[in-house]
């Protein structure tokens, strides 16, 4: 008896020490080479310190050394999952500087490929999020369907992942004859798989238990951290650049901006961010359908652009709605064919900065889910 008492006393005097854990940089579920230094108290996360830069490829330095058309391949390599969307703000910024009006058909093709790529991006996001939560089957379903999207983009541009398809004032190539049918086919497949994944993953009891009420991001915090895209919309804010300041021809389409409603938990949890992605895929399908119907059959795919692109002295900040949020390019031109300074406002970079804020107080296993729900691409975080 006295022995037990002594032990009890000893244990009560033990300070439950906090432990520091390293997640990454090489870790199967960090979505790239990100290192998280996590301080945990038992099972509860008390502090998260992200360490970035394991993929810092000196993008901005390269931009200062390259001519304007040569930068586009590097921009592809920034957010490599949605390369088409990345190129868009950059070429739009240059078009604004050079005062170029792009042909009608180009605008439609741009919208279609960007929305196709948005679907592909969200498919990867939901698929890997499913992997984090322990569901492997949606991964296989989504990657099967993503392949069909990639085949269309490959036929247009020639590459599978890093397309280099947008040019200043136009596109690298025209569409091919069976483009419309293939797009419609893909949309059908995407919708079918989405319906299946809704049953299989999103409304699965286990998945809801795992993701609801985890990683709650309130709208005030989200705006203060300048989050954007599904991360911000998951918190219930209806903010989408395609609606708020319609660039290109987005004002011609009828689509909705899905927001998180807190269907199974509080507004702004991991589940909400995920359902927003699922619903955005459906909206993208709608946009593609409308664009395909409205697209002119014939037309130029390149505006009249000088051979050497030399924007006048000045600066421009252009942003568009990337699948991950708003991606901005700040280009300072000094009148030569190379930019003076090019800053990319990486969407994931900004979205990731909210991690220390929203993961405090949750379980350690939830940290991976929160990270997955933010949908980061390290190429864009580190650039």
């Amino acid at each position, binding site marked *: 008896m006295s022995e037990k008492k002594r032990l009890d006393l000893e244990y009560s005097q033990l300070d439950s020490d906090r432990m520091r854990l390293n997640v990454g940089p090489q870790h199967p579920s960090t979505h790239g080479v990100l290192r998280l230094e996590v301080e945990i108290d038992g099972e509860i996360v008390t502090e998260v310190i992200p360490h970035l830069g394991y993929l810092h490829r000196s993008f901005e330095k390269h931009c200062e050394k390259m001519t304007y058309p040569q930068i586009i391949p590097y921009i592809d390599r920034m957010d490599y999952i949605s390369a088409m969307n990345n190129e868009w703000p950059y070429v739009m910024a240059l078009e604004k500087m050079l005062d170029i009006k792009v042909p009608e058909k180009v605008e439609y093709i741009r919208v279609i490929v960007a929305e196709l790529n948005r679907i592909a991006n969200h498919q990867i996001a939901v698929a890997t999020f499913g992997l984090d939560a322990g569901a492997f089957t949606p991964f296989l379903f989504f990657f099967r369907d993503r392949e069909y999207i990639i085949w269309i983009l490959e036929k247009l541009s020639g590459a599978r992942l890093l397309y280099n398809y947008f040019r200043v004032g136009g596109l690298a190539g025209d569409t091919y004859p069976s483009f419309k049918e293939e797009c419609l086919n893909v949309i059908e497949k995407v919708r079918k798989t989405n319906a299946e994944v809704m049953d299989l993953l999103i409304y699965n009891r286990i998945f809801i238990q795992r993701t609801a009420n985890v990683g709650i991001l309130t709208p005030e915090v989200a705006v*203060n951290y300048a989050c954007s895209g599904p991360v911000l919309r998951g918190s219930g804010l209806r903010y989408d650049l395609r609606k708020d300041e319609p660039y290109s021809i987005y004002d011609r389409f009828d689509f909705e901006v899905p927001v998180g409603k807190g269907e199974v938990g509080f507004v702004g949890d991991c589940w909400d961010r995920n359902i927003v992605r699922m619903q955005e895929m459906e909206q993208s399908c709608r946009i593609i359908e409308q664009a395909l119907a409205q697209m002119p059959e014939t037309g130029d795919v390149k505006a009249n652009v000088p051979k050497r692109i030399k924007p006048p002295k000045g600066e421009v900040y252009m942003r568009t709605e990337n699948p991950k949020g708003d991606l901005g390019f700040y280009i300072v031109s000094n009148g030569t064919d190379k930019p003076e300074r090019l800053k990319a406002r990486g969407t994931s*970079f900004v979205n990731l900065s909210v991690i220390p804020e929203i993961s405090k107080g949750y379980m350690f296993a939830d940290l991976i889910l929160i990270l997955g729900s933010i949908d980061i691409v390290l190429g864009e975080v580190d650039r």
Partner: protein
Amino acid sequence: MLPNEIFEKLRSVYSDQIIELIENHPSDSFITVNASALFEICHSLRDEAFFMFDYLMSLTGMDLGENLGVVYHLYSMQLKHKIVIKAFVPKEQPKVPSVERIWRTADWHEREAYDLIGVNFEGHHNLIRILLPYDWEGYPLRKDYTAPEMYHGMKVS
């Protein structure tokens, strides 16, 4: 609100701390301000009812030869207007007040500008390198930067 209205409003409060408004189509118009008063200006830009700039889109550090510049792209979620604020500091003493307490997103942006350009943000709670290794020397995005020969026994270039 248009940039010239914002400029007039700021001018009436901060008089000579607001240096100039430059409008040059097609580039965005921007307001140059004195770096020493940046924190107060940003505070009122966020809190005043007619500004409401609650969304810091981007924070850029720039090397302009003799000076270093910091560029703030602001956006208002409620009023849907934008403005660009610029501040210049000499390269020898690149001290800019940190706006991290106003917009939390500036935390990482400022660390990045410190990392790559070498702007010193005063009042930042944790101003360390973010992208490059902690023991890296020099600021790579400066125009006169030359990469080191070796790093940890590996050849750099």
